[in-house]
């Protein structure tokens, strides 16, 4: 007999993991499956912010309100994953007359005055208005050609771990969460979806699961899974890319305007800085998202007018994702609604037991999951209330003091700080085994840094099965050396069935986000190309992976 669940959620992004957690916490027998890894799709490729969406204040005030309120909840349930990002919104002089510049600054300030009402919902500080001199003393790299700037507050979040923690919470609540498990076929009896056949993408093993409800939360893959169930979901998918810059080149996020008037920004993120994002209609395969030299130059040029120093920064990688935006006709990508919609395919097409979700924003993922779970519970006759905004995510109970951990375990304070930022109250659990095995305090990845004990924890307690899973959980191999130092030791710790194939798969995947940088003159920097020559020496010349 195949294993049977109340609900199966397909998709390991913020929506899927959020819905599965909510279902499991309300006592439903829950299974979550993800074909790659938790947070490896759209969520992991986002700007990494639960921002309130001031952008939507003028057109969709509900989106702003929802995002701001839910961001406040997320900060409470996963405080260790979140970090404050103060934003600078400089008003560039450009070639407009002086009376117009002054009005522009006043307008921007008025706008953020209105945003203050929502910002408070997520614990952000109210805006301030800075003169040109004040702005430049805070952030000297901003162009001197400005009238002044307005500040406001947003929150960054480690999105990959957010999805992982939700998946781990499913397990804590008695459910099952499987990564690297893809749906091969959806099973139907008449017009009712009854289960599915899945395949483990690493071992090739197939297996059947039954459920009363099957929830499609696969983001840009939503139409594809819907088609497997014989229904349709129409999206207007849009591509967004980011450039990943080595180091925090600024302590403030800085907003700038692109040639088409769109707003982009740089934001400090962990050890790095992100520059993004683009928003372009996408017609291709969400498994193969190309990044073009034009997109790269668009971002660099757009940022350059407010932050000229961007040209000197070392770009080390790109991220790319597809927004599963709701379908809209005859509007520009940027003006598409960020509303979300839950599709009950029984109502719309007469196929029972199957639901889809699309649209929405990361910041409101929990709220969306709550709505989806309410609907599932209504179908299944469950009356438990939602508690996802109250119960902390794993590690979110408290945030230990990094200095104390560093002292207790004799670690570099920065390494301790990074562990706390990833594991919160579970940091102690990650480090405790080193009392027995002190040599596990050694750094495997020197860029981030990542210690051997954390890798073991990711493998043992966080279902990391591939090198890329380790990267998403710890940041291993994501720094400027792009795995040159850490891949061999990490392969040793992971001990995969076929180490050579696993290494090759990782190199191929990380190459896809790096290769575009070599095609654009603006990112083909000396350190990038020199590092690549060295990595070729390692993987091609010494390890001879090409002839293995």
């Amino acid at each position, binding site marked *: 007999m195949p294993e049977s669940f109340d609900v199966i959620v397909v998709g390991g992004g913020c929506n899927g993991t959020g819905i599965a957690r909510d279902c499991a916490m309300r006592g439903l027998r829950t299974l979550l499956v993800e074909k790659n890894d938790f947070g490896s799709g759209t969520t992991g490729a986002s700007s990494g912010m639960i921002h309130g969406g001031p952008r939507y204040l003028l057109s969709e005030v509900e989106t702003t309100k929802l995002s701001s309120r839910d961001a406040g909840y997320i900060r409470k349930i996963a405080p260790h994953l979140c970090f404050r990002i103060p934003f600078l919104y400089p008003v560039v002089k450009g070639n407009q007359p002086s009376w117009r510049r002054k009005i522009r600054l006043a307008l921007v300030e008025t706008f953020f005055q209105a945003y203050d009402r929502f910002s408070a919902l997520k614990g952000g500080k109210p805006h301030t208005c800075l003169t040109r001199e004040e702005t430049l003393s805070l952030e000297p790299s901003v162009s001197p050609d400005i009238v002044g700037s307005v500040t406001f507050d947003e929150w960054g979040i480690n999105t990959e771990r957010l999805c992982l923690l939700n998946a781990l919470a499913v397990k804590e609540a008695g459910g099952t969460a499987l990564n690297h498990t893809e749906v091969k076929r959806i099973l139907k009896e008449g017009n009712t979806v009854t289960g599915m056949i899945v395949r483990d993408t690493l071992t090739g093993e197939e297996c059947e699961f039954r459920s009363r409800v099957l929830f499609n939360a696969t983001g840009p893959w939503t139409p594809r899974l819907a088609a497997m169930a014989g229904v349709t979901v129409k999206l207007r998918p849009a591509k967004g890319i980011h450039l990943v810059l080595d180091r925090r080149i600024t302590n403030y996020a800085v907003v700038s305007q692109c040639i088409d008037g769109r707003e982009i920004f740089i934001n400090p993120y962990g050890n790095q800085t992100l520059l993004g994002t683009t928003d372009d209609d996408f017609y291709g395969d969400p498994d193969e998202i190309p990044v073009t030299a034009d997109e790269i130059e668009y971002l660099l040029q757009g940022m350059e007018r407010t932050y000229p120093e961007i040209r000197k920064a070392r770009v080390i990688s790109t991220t790319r994702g597809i927004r599963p935006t709701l379908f809209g006709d005859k509007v520009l990508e940027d003006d598409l609604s960020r509303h979300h919609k839950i599709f009950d395919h029984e109502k719309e097409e007469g196929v029972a037991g199957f639901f889809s979700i699309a649209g929405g924003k990361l910041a409101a993922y929990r709220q969306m999951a709550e709505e989806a779970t309410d609907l599932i519970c209504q179908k299944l006759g469950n009356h438990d209330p939602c508690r996802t905004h109250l119960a902390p995510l794993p590690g979110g109970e408290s945030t230990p003091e990094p200095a104390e951990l560093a002292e207790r375990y004799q670690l570099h304070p920065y390494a301790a700080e990074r562990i706390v930022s990833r594991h919160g109250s579970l940091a102690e659990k990650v480090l405790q085994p080193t009392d027995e095995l*002190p040599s596990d305090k050694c750094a495997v990845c020197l860029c981030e840094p990542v210690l051997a004990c954390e890798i073991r924890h990711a493998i043992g307690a966080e279902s990391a099965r591939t090198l890329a899973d380790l990267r998403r959980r710890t940041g291993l191999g994501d720094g400027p050396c792009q795995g040159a130092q850490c891949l061999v030791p990490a392969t040793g710790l992971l001990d995969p069935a076929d*180490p050579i194939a696993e290494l090759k798969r990782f190199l191929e995947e990380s190459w896809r986000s790096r290769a575009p940088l070599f095609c654009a003159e603006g990112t*083909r920097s000396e350190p990038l190309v020199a590092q690549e020559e*060295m990595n070729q020496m390692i993987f091609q010349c010494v390890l*001879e992976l090409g002839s293995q």
Partner: protein
Amino acid sequence: MRPRVTIIGSGIAAVATACEAIRSGAEVTVIRGRPGSTALSSGAWDIAGDPLRFAGTPWQEVRSPRESLQELIRRLPHHPYRLLSLHDQVGDLPSFLSGAVNRIARALDLPLHGEIGRPFLALTPLGTVKVTAYTLPTHGAGNLLEMQGARLMVVGIQGLPSHPAALIASLLKKNRHRSPSLSEITATQIAPERIPKTLSPVQVAHSFDEDEAIDSLHKVLVQQAEKVRPTHVALPPVMGIRQSAHILSRLRETTGIHWFETLGLPPSIPGIRLQESLDRYFRLTELREGTVTSARMERKRVVALHIRDDEGRDEEFPVDRVVLATGKFLGGGIAPGTFREKIFNLPIFHNGNEIGARPVGPVVSRHYLDPHPLQSMGLRVNPHLQPVDDRGHLLLENLWAAGSILGGYDAAREGCGVGVAVGTGTLAGRLASERFAAHA
């Protein structure tokens, strides 16, 4: 008057040039900037990898560097080896290369292991096997082709994850069908005292330059060897920086076993050791420290180089003949933004076509392990190793080029980095020193 040869660069190609120029009676000046790819060497000295080798090739059937050389020349029309093989000063290329390698090894006081007529199969810190020609002394006992009936023990050090002994042993076992010679493979972890707690390979290697740490390491290793009774032991490539030869020979004397290091992954300790021997050699030549930023040219001749030292002071240095051995991107020879050579603004080529700042085709491939034009682009030179333009016309009459700044080959894929550096360096050194050099 003796010809005056100025060499820009401080890697293997520069040493080869200097050795040959001195041998030819020239007065040699070396301008040393920052270390390049030689300092990242794994400890293997490649001449030519086997281009016909595939995943299942049995070890005994891997071609020797001598045979592989011919194959590379046959397949790759722009390869510097082809230029060398056609030059009347070179004669038989394999003999030319092995002669030059041996002379350089003597000059550097490095007893290399290996020979041109036989492949050296070296163990990597992943457990794969690399085909090369020569290795530095500490890897010398590690040719897998010479381990008939051997019992091999792979050693890991606790807290040094860069040498995963269990993984190395298991991969090697998996490939045992390709090498019936190894009779037993085991892995072991040791925990020597007196090494730093949080480790990087460089810190560990430095710690093994101290007598007490060496003694403790020696004791642990000998104990372990007595337990397992191997005939060969693969050690992590961290056995001291200055003391490595001493550590290994003492182990050999105490136990009678063959001890060797696996290859280092860049940035590797064997590379640091190699760069140190190169630097010792350069101290015997006339040495200038600094980066050459630009050059003064008069009527197709280089007349002076502008050198900037560490403190940012600029100096004009008059030159007679110049050999450019500044490397590709790691060494800093080529500017990747514009794809031009940095000092003389020479054009860069791939497959005989000049590349500009906006290349027409992609400079990298879609798949990581496929060949990338980026890795094989470089200067185009005439048969005398002098840079030429897109029509084949000589650019500067008293300039020669050697090493990885040359285009037409991919050192990483073809396993020929040191061979090209030594071969072109030697020929460039000889030609630049001729009293009546072709164009100088």
